[in-house]
């Protein structure tokens, strides 16, 4: 069923919630007649990035960056939406009574923050973002605004991610110490996996990197967009003994399943911000936790919030309580934005069908 934002009936001196309002289908912009990252099929959708909890199939019209549209096409097939429109970073278009402009979010390739301006009020829906450097996507751009909608995936002060290059060094040191074992790196297949590979290349690792079947399509798409990832090989069909001393990227769900039996005495690594907390890593049976995250850490969240100059902060998917509390202690107006269906992407335990035994 297709939903539609109500017609724009507003008066001068709008409140921010008259511009963007959380609804069951997602964040709804009534004066613009669209939803941002809707969780249910809607008539017009503006999508921040390609992760499946943000980019879903079945909308009427979709506005997103070319990369996000391409990724949706790869994931859902040609007919994932009624119609599509690509927008570049920095480009502004008019939708109904609002102006919409996309800015890099630094999360994954093609990820964007959406700035919605109506009259004099600017709201930035940042989607998922990180302020740390990432060789596989455009760097996060700070957008001054009145209301900033921030994620809070790692919204606790214990989450501090450090330098991802140091984590990759840890991985390479382990490969050097255990040359007879295979290293299996669990990483989300859109974004994280390609970033880990690019970081390995930056660290000077030039041996072939092996890929789980579920990683291949999206990784090759990254390469087609000019992201240098070096030599990649499918792990399927490679003899067990030939995998000693190699690095293989796989979806997190695959690193603890039957699939791992094809590797010689594998060291199980997992690249995720969750790996900062020991109990989390142990729960998953991870032997080599790598704290590499595509989300901003606590310091990133708080410094970004401060730098936007926004007087009002809406906090969504993650640890809202702590971040809302922090904002309020800094004299900012803040409230959690309850959006159902968001924030379960990295925690997902259910493998996508093609991940199971690929």
């Amino acid at each position, binding site marked *: 069923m297709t939903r539609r934002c109500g017609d724009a009936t507003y008066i001068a001196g709008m409140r921010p919630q008259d511009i963007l309002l959380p609804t069951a289908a997602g964040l709804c912009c009534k004066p613009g007649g669209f939803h941002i990252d809707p969780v249910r099929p809607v008539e017009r959708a503006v999508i921040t990035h390609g992760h499946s909890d943000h980019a879903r199939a079945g909308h009427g019209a979709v506005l997103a960056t070319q990369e996000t549209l391409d990724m949706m096409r790869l994931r859902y097939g040609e007919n994932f939406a009624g119609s599509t429109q690509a927008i570049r970073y920095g480009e502004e278009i008019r939708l109904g009574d609002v102006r919409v402009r996309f800015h890099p979010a630094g999360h994954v390739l093609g990820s964007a923050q959406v700035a919605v301006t109506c009259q004099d009020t600017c709201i930035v829906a940042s989607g998922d973002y990180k302020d740390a450097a990432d060789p596989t996507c455009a760097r996060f751009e700070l957008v001054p605004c009145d209301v900033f909608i921030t994620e809070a995936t790692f919204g*606790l*002060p*214990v*989450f*501090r991610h*450090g330098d991802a290059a140091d984590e990759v060094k*840890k991985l390479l040191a*382990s490969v050097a*110490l*255990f040359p007879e074992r295979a290293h299996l790196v669990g990483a989300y297949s859109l974004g994280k996996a390609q970033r880990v590979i690019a970081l390995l290349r930056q660290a000077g690792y030039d041996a072939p990197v092996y890929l789980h079947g579920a990683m291949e399509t999206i990784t090759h798409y990254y390469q087609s967009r000019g992201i240098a990832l070096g030599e990649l090989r499918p792990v399927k069909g490679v003899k067990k003994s030939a995998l000693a001393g190699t690095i293989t990227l796989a979806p997190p769900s695959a690193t*603890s*399943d*039957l*699939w*791992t*039996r094809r590797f010689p*005495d594998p060291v*199980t690594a997992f690249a995720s911000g969750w790996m*900062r*907390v*020991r*109990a989390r*890593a*142990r*729960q*998953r*049976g*991870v*032997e*080599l*936790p790598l704290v590499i995250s595509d989300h901003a850490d606590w310091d990133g969240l708080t410094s970004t919030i401060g730098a936007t100059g926004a007087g009002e902060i809406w906090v969504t998917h993650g*640890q809202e*309580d*702590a971040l809302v*509390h*922090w904002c309020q*202690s800094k004299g900012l107006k803040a409230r959690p934005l309850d959006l159902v269906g968001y924030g379960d992407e990295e925690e997902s335990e259910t493998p996508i069908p093609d991940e199971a035994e690929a």
Partner: protein
Amino acid sequence: MNRFAELLDRLAYEPGRNNKLRLITGYFREVGDPDRGYALAALTGALSFKHAKPALIRDLIAARTDPVLFGLSYDYVGDLSETVALMWPKAALAAHNNPPPPSLTEVVTTLRTLGKTELPKQLERWLDELDETGRWALLKLVTGALRIGISARLAKTAAAALGDKDPHEVELIWPGLSPPYLDLFAWLEGRAEKPVNRDPAPFRPVMLAHAIEDTDFAALDPADYIAEWKWDGIRVQAVAGRDDRGHITARLYSRTGEDITGSFPDLVPSLHLPGAIDGELLILREGRVQSFNVLQQRLNRKVVSPKLIKEFPIHLRAYDLLGDDENDLRELPFAERRERLERFVGKLDDPRIDLSPTVPFTSWDALTAARADPASAGAGEDADAVEGVMLKRRDAPYLPGRPKGQWWKWKRDPHIIDAVLMYAQRGHGKRSSYYSDYTFGVWTERDGGDELVPVGKAYFGFTDEELLQIDRFVRRNTTEKFGPVRHVVHEGDKGLVLEVAFEGLQRSPRHKSGVAMRFPRISRLRWDKPPREADRLETLEKMLKAEAAEIDV
């Protein structure tokens, strides 16, 4: 400190013994003196300084963070040291004036001499200088909670590997060494002679037995062997020697060389002649050996109170004599050492130390009968504390480790029950893709109907082939999943019956069933048996009663 922290961090996640060894040896190779020596001391529990209380750590973090944010974080992380390590906000320091993080040596040597009032300020400085992992390791170290699953033995083995030495050699000289072990590392790296153990009562590496199989007997001649009871206590080495001034020093070691004298001060006065006895630690009440369950109540106590000593009188039952005054007897044949032992124990003439009797036999059949009924074969009233028989070659010297064909252990048959598989959990390391840890239960009546109650957990005993079969069964018969744990179907006519072998049973308020098994393992898969025919809790309770009678004496 950061490098040591990195090692601890990695060790905390690594399940494999050999890989742990590689990591520790790699650290010793890479890190110089004296840091690696203090690391070895930390891993072997040889560091001594007054530990910081958790309350102190709480005060430190409270002074720097918002209490609400700390509360939310602590709830999420669940471990105080880790929470503080992760969220510690560094003091704003001038960028050009950042002191380097402290070395492990600096931390250890400072902690040794630091006064109580200076500790908070010092800890704060270090927390500012270290990274997340460094702070975590520091807090674990100062609170004395360095639990990372490394035994002292493993750390010493890793050190030995640095110089391709036998770990026994390190064990031998260990009591004479002290942190930061400069002489040890110099020897391991071939830069100096082997350190001499000047300890008057040193540990000697222990000789162990192989489990005998039915098929082994055909090749063995009864006349070559002496048999004795295998007592169900703790294997120890009791050593006494004279120091430079001629005073007797006595020590008690576990079979891995750990000094456990402090736990058994009541035995020390009995070790009044220089010599080294290999024997079994037991609890004796009115001359009768108590079961292992009774002994267990004396173990792992922080404080050995006079009451504990009185209620659990310790006893040493002697098997072998490795040293007699200055003489090393280990090269002598066992039969000869046994004679020396008999004379030595006679000379000691102490009620706390006696001789483990031999079991006379002329044929394997006779020994089989004795093993089946120790009470009428000489063990008398102590028969319940007999775990089986030991066979020792008359001509065997005392050799470290588990040499082939010299000593055999022939345990009594274990207890067996049929239980039903209830839950399965993924294993670790090599087994992380297998469901290899099994919780099993037996039937009991509850609310008018029969239901299964878990009685234990086992993760070995099966063959590789059986593991594959159980794994497949688990995957196909899962009713629910909780993270790494699967609920496996367990109904009267659906489920898998496991034959479980175990050594003993204890009452346990921590288990829902009220019983805890000792050394449970899967001995057979009973695909043929419907779950409803598995054993009942009453069977276990009957066994408990027999054992409880002894504890209540």
